[in-house]
């Protein structure tokens, strides 16, 4: 068995962390574009228009059935060809672009379901009441529905976000140098040795980020749901624990 060097994990951490911003940039870009698309899809699903509903349903259903790695390669190989037929050449565009496009497509489908569930969790009477006191449709949404949706959506949103970050690790397969790609580069540089130590360091980094994100979102959720009558199960559980 090859020797295991725990000290190498510490040694390699700063090198891996130097690529952390790429991972974060990927997540942030996807969050923006995927969130936007997801919002449109969710809107299409809850509105009454039949065409928009069908399109949203087909999109969400199909995309949720596709493994991320397959989608990644379809976009990476397919998108340049597709755009070339319209006379747009994106063969020189950086790999980050393809990664963000891929994960936006995937993330939009997941987040659309989160948005929809949150929207439907708010009582219909709320909207009707808001309209009846003379708010416009948009005002009712922004001032009455949205603030209530946000609280409901937080746990699922956090899950989707963490999933996105973890799936994002696949981006190294098309050559993006995020922390995962950096790790692969380092292993290549060492001619395949220290693999275990590097993967362990990577797992550690992802684990810590996940825990931080979860803690942060739980804090936000508790802060936002202050004074609400029926907090969700997670908070109830926590409150019960505090009492006992």
């Amino acid at each position, binding site marked *: *068995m*090859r020797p295991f060097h725990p000290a190498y994990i510490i040694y390699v951490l700063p090198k891996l962390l130097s690529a952390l911003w790429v991972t974060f940039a990927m997540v942030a870009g996807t969050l923006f574009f995927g969130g936007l698309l997801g919002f449109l899809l969710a809107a299409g699903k809850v509105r009454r228009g039949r065409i928009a509903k069908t399109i949203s349903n087909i999109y969400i259903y*199909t995309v*949720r*059935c*596709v*493994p*991320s*790695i*397959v*989608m990644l*390669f*379809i976009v990476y*190989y*397919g998108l340049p*060809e*597709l755009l*070339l*037929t319209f006379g747009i050449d994106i063969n020189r565009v950086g790999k980050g672009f393809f990664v963000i496009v891929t994960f936006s497509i995937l993330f939009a489908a997941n987040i659309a379901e989160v948005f929809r569930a949150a929207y439907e969790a708010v009582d219909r009477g709320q909207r009707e009441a808001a309209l009846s006191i003379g708010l416009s449709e948009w005002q009712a949404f922004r001032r009455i529905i949205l603030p209530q949706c946000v609280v409901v959506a937080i746990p699922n949103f956090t899950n989707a976000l*963490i999933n996105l*970050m*973890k*799936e*994002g*690790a*696949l981006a*190294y397969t098309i050559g993006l140098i995020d922390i*995962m790609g950096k790790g692969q580069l380092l292993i290549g540089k060492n001619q395949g040795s220290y*693999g*275990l130590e590097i*993967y*362990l360091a*990577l*797992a550690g980094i*992802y*684990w810590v*980020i*996940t*825990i931080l994100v979860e803690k942060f979102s739980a804090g936000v959720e508790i802060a936002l749901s202050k004074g609400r009558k029926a907090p969700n*199960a997670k908070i109830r*559980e926590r409150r019960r624990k505090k009492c006992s």
Partner: protein
Amino acid sequence: MQLNTEFMRQTLIDVLAGVPVTLKLTFVTLLLSAPPAFWIALGKTEGGKNRGKISGVYVSVVRGTPVVVQILFLYSLLPTMLNYLIKNVFRLDFNIFNIDAVWYAYIIFILNTTAVLSEVFRSALLAVDGGQLEAALSIGLSRRQAYMRIIIPQALMSALPNICNTTVSLLKNSSLAFMMTVKDITAIAKVKAAYGYNYIEAYLVILLMYVILCSVVQGIFRLLENAVSVRRRAAV
């Protein structure tokens, strides 16, 4: 943009050979992960302190790290470690490097799915009212009987949609088994694509395959849900 339809047709037929591998990978993993997952969930809801803590760390690590990292880590650790154990501890004459990589895939996916399923089971157990267990015990059922006859049937009902989600995501994740040289749908199509650089066509075929497989899985779960809820309605 031109697609090579002849290649797609041929690949679609070739890829069918990978469907049993993918399905086996999914369902064997699911079946073998369920018992330990249930044990962990029970440990958490019933509140044995050490058991809850250890399984908590395990679940948190598995859910907090990407599947790729888990695969790459375990796939670079397991073979050499097993080889060392067999050669130096058990002193057997057996070459571990000859066994099929699919066994490593099973180990890795079981470790992963156990953690995910344990959370599904835990939330399902919590969804059953605590009074149910007390009532069952008070009329003289043993703990085991109470769980088998009262708690689990009710918990299963609320767990089914989540089990469906877990199955679908497991099915999708099993496409990563090609990293361990397992010949599943993705691996076969990738090899085909590499001959003539027909990547787009090959990946579209894979996409189609996964959409079909996921639809079948979701259809089965919908039937199951209907069957269970019919029984429930009849009981009321």
